């Protein structure tokens, strides 16, 4: 087990290395630097700026310098947000995004699994049809449509919730409700369909027939024999779901004006703030990779057939 974890951690290093290297060169070779779109700067000023950010050095040297800084946890200065380093910017915004993302993931898993199980147990009855229609809505309606429509209904017409913003303290919980539900909706829908399908498949399996032939009550059959096996696909979906939630938070944070990484990320992309873009990508990839790692381990705990070799 320990061996497995160590091996998995070591295998993350090349992946992260490739991601960082690729994005570094991709961005450096891209046409149009961060300062090219501004009004014509005097030659001398431009030279000074380039020098300040070490952009006048040969590419190889820049790359080594950047790698060295990253290992020290320094993601460089932001080109646009003067006087702030990328590390600072990410540190300020990340907690908000993580809070929002984890609440959304939690909601998606909790409701998705619940609805999926009910739907499978009531297959082809009205509960199933209702749940699956809701799931198709969740899969079909884009986040940036759900978000504004929720705002329109619950904030502007009914005045139940704040339209947007991020307040700390008790009022913050109200402000969190809409963004969290919006963000969780597509993943709720997908998880509901996934768990319905896998519960149905397990229900048809031989070992469930055995359990019923033993005279167990249907509720015991479901709780004890069906759920564990049926949850495995859901667990392996958590990795991609988390990636999706990170992406989705870009839109949700924009719509609901949440001061999170996603909003900064869009800003940096629109402003061509290259150091900030790279910092975001590195942090996002790290989170994703870590999440997949956790999912693997949880999966191993659930499925005794997996041996950590």
């Amino acid at each position, binding site marked *: 087990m320990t061996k497995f974890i160590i091996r998995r951690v070591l295998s993350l290093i090349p992946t992260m290395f490739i991601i960082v290297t690729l994005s570094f060169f991709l961005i450096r070779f891209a046409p149009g630097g961060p300062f090219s779109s501004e009004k014509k700067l005097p030659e001398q000023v431009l030279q000074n700026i380039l020098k300040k950010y070490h952009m006048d050095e040969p590419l190889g040297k820049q790359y080594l310098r950047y790698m060295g800084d990253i290992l020290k946890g320094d993601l460089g200065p932001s080109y646009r947000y003067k006087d702030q380093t990328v590390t600072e910017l990410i540190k300020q915004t990340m907690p908000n995004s993580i809070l929002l993302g984890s609440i959304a993931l939690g909601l998606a898993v909790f409701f998705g699994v619940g609805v999926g199980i009910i739907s499978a147990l009531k297959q082809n009855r009205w509960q199933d049809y209702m749940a699956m229609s809701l799931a198709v809505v969740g899969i079909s309606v884009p986040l940036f449509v759900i978000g504004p429509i929720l705002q329109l209904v619950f904030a502007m017409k009914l005045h139940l919730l704040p339209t947007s913003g991020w307040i700390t303290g008790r009022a913050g919980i109200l402000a969190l409700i809409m963004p969290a539900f919006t963000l969780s909706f597509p993943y709720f829908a997908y998880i509901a369909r996934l768990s319905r399908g896998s519960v149905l498949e397990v229900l048809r399996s031989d070992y469930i027939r*055995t359990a019923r*032939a033993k005279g167990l009550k249907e509720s015991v059959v479901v709780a*004890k024999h069906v759920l564990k096996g049926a949850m495995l696909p859901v667990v392996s979906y958590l990795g991609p779901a988390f990636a999706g939630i990170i992406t989705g938070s870009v839109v949700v944070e924009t719509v609901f004006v949440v001061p999170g990484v996603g909003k900064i990320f869009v800003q940096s992309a629109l402003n061509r703030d290259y150091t900030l873009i790279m910092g975001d990508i590195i942090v996002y990839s790290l989170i994703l990779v870590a999440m997949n790692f956790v999912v693997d381990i949880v999966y191993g705990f659930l499925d005794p057939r997996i041996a950590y070799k």
Partner: protein
Amino acid sequence: MTDEVILQVKDLKTYFHVDEGIVKAVDGVSFNLRKGETLGIVGESGSGKSVTNLSIINMIPNPPGRIAGGEVLFHGADLLKMPVKDLRSIRGNKISMIFQDPMTSLNPFLRISTQMVETIVLHQGLDKKAAKAKAIEMLKLAGIPAPEKRIDQYPHQFSGGMRQRVMIAMGLSCNPEILIADEPTSALDVTIQAQILDLMKDLTARLGTAVILITHSLGVVAGMCDTLCVMYAGRVVERGATGEIFAEPKHPYTQGLIKSVPRLDQAQGDRLRSIRGQPPNVIDLPDCCPFYPRCDKAMDICKRKYPATTEYGNGRAVSCWLYTEAK
């Protein structure tokens, strides 16, 4: 074996409704099972053997399946009309089942102990500790070495033969009156098959359990069973004591089956016989003897009507126009 009949299946009909029509998987099956008896049900795949036995404990998935008629009397009570709650106290307790594929019939996510203990606790009212002791004792009886250790393992840590031993131990752990074994050895290596059959024979004889053994192998039946039902396309075409049927098979299908078993005393160079053709697809069968397209003795009437059953007494019966008066 006594003469007390504990299970009576009367004119059982189980149909499946599929897109293409109605599949009459079991169509009027009747037989009796006496205390301590071993009954074999033989037939090709798709002949309705397994569906018959799932119907006995009312476990046909519905939809698409439906028990369309008949009675299953266990000590006189009809299992098909019994409330689910009462039925559950019989399943796994008085009547237990062993399935074909031991690789998939045990829950891969739960320890053997969990799976055995839950049954014993449920039906015998023992506490968990006593139930585990009982489970270990059953595993030992079933020939599992070091059962105290192995009981805490997961199914994937057992070989196929060992898993089937676990299934047998689990099936017999509540001292059932009837053990239904659905092709218990078909998924196993030939060398293991004999061991498992011996184990079943030995244990059920010791515990006085009646057995319904479903198989497609006449070899298995010959060594194990007191009586025999031969099924074809959802119907019992011939039944009777095993010895009598082997000595003098009446139905052309039974004759064909027996001839197609390779024998050691066969002269070298003799060709092995086989029954030509395929078992029929039982969707929307017309009223006829379903065997006639493959039968050497088929007559005109065979194509128009299913024959009535001719009884010979002592449980011997055959359904074939060759033995029916009204030709």
